């Protein structure tokens, strides 16, 4: 159990509305640095919505209105003056379904660094790509075919390619929106191991439907239900001795 008190993300009274419908109701939580925080809860409870608030991906949805406050490193991000481009370069995201660009494996990873101007020379860029692929545990599998399309990889490899793509722009936080739900158990196990390694360097927030996965990979767990944050705490505690009966019911499979 990692014990630190460095708050990375501090959310206070976050409300989200889709048109008239309220999706999140006064969510407040703090997320510690270099830990894995799992967001669990039944479908439609708002956990993905909360995740997408953190890197402002909800902006893409016209009808979505976010209010309240989220501070990343003590900087307010729910405001019109926030530079979403630099925010998103600091907060990487991995999606539910692997979404590599229809380009080569190399270009997939190199795209982020090159638009942000992280590499001065071609060899710099190559270094970034190779390091990122290594960190994502994919390099040994693809080193001989970096020029093949990213879409030619298997689902699990594609997802790791997306992780490498996110890592390549040096984020501090990685958001994962059910990253294993489209993968088979073996690919899932590989990704879970990878998450365990990545937590040494990154703050990770993962949305998952699988309670076992939350128990395996996370240090903190937040349980959402009907747009409210019911309980948050150490994963061990939540899974063994939750305070709230709803949490108890959910993790023991009585509803959800």
């Amino acid at each position: 159990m990692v014990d630190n008190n460095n708050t990375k993300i501090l959310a206070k009274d976050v409300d989200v509305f889709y048109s008239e419908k309220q999706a999140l109701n006064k969510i407040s939580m703090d997320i510690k640095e270099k830990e894995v925080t799992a967001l669990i809860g039944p479908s439609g409870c708002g956990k993905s919505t909360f995740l997408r608030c953190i890197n402002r991906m909800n902006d893409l949805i016209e009808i979505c209105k976010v209010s309240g406050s989220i501070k990343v490193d003590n900087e307010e991000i729910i405001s019109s003056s926030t530079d979403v481009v630099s925010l998103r370069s600091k907060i990487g995201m991995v999606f539910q379904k692997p979404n590599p660009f229809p380009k080569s494996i190399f270009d997939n990873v190199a795209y982020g660094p090159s638009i942000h101007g992280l590499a001065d020379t071609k060899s710099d860029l190559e270094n970034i790509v190779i390091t990122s692929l290594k960190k994502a545990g994919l390099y040994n599998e693809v080193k001989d075919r970096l020029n093949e399309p990213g879409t030619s990889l298997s689902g699990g490899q594609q997802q790791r390619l997306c992780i490498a793509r996110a890592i390549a722009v040096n984020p501090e936080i990685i958001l994962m929106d059910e990253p294993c739900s489209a993968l088979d158990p073996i690919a899932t196990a590989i990704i879970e191991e990878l998450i365990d390694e990545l937590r040494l360097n990154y703050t990770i927030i993962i949305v998952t439907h699988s309670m076992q996965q939350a128990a395996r990979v996370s240090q903190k767990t937040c349980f959402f239900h009907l747009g409210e944050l019911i309980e948050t705490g150490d994963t061990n505690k939540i899974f063994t001795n939750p305070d709230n009966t709803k949490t108890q019911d959910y993790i023991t499979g009585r509803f959800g």
Partner: protein
Amino acid sequence: MNNTVTQERIIALRKKRSAQDLRFKYYGFIAMCLALAVLVFLLYSIFSRGFTAFQKTTILLEINYDQEVLKLTPDSTEKEIEKGKFFKVKKNALNNVFENLSKSDAKFIKKLFSTNIDNEIKNYFLNNPSVLNTKQKLWVTAHSNVDQMLKGNASRDVPEDRRKLNDIQLSFIDQLVQENRIQKEFNNFFFTRADSRHPEIAGIAGSFMGSLLTLFVVFILSFPIAIGASVYLEEFAPKNKLTELIEVNISNLAAVPSIVFGLLGLGVLLNVFGFPRSTPLVGGTVLALMTLPTIIIACRASLKAVPPSIKEGALAIGATKSQAVFHHVVPLALPGTLTGTIIGLAQALGETAPLIMIGMVAFIPNIPTGITEPSASLPVQIFLWVESAERGFQEKSAAAIMIILLFLFMMNALAVYLRNRFEKKW
């Protein structure tokens, strides 16, 4: 007991359902066969009428390039040759087509030849100046009436006063055929000349070039505007009443009869802005306006077809909105946009009505070389030829339809090729 009754009912129903299925399959098959039969009939009627236009009739003529008659010397410059008395040489040659011609019959001879043969005689001399003072046998173009008679398009069994050629001329033709002095050869005029009043020397080169230049203008105007408009509407525009209104009206514009765009061209482009009349510039502008909605709709459909996850992926690593759109969405939509544009161009190629309104229906005997020169276009050329009374133009119009169909076919093949070549799977 009850159970078996239910079983029987289920079986009967299943039979009925599969019969229905089969019946529907046959309906579809019959419909397809009907469509195919109509298409085959259409193509057959066009080809059977049109293919003869690719041949022309020529008559062997013995020309005496006499220095005295031509009023030329071996040292004459090209300019002097242009002024040579070739019509006299021609006259002599015509008088000697047959031996012992009576004067009254001789005047019918002239009508067997195209009015263009002066030029043919002169051009031969321009290309071979050494033939001065020699006798040359030249195959020169026959008159359309002769051509049509020999191709079997005109009947010789009708009374003389309802024929273009009288009995004497027919006997001349028979004699020429017998002596092998008349033949059919490849009709190069059809592909190298512009329109003419004389069917035997009318060609589609002028209208083809006109159509090509018009399409060029359409492409230059509509492609960038359509891409810009559809990218803006699809990716950047806020969803409000104004953009909704624009979207609805783009769909409405796509359904506006093309002649209305012609009126717009006449009223605004010609009368207000003073564009040159009958030119590919104004024709292309009108057709671009007409095809823009079609292309925009196709472009937007292909932009919509790009999975949003690609754009989200780009945005999530910190791409700006325009980077996400232009690095990822637009390249993926490009095959669809190109296909849509080509389909739009194909529509523009076949359009006649708006061009008539802006004066591209004029008789233009020259091949245009620029977008500001008066020119014809293929569909209007077909329209003009179908209208003419001369029998020689009938096969020409069918042949021009064949050319325009080939043109369309090639454009569609290009669209399919581009789509397959650049389409990316994900």
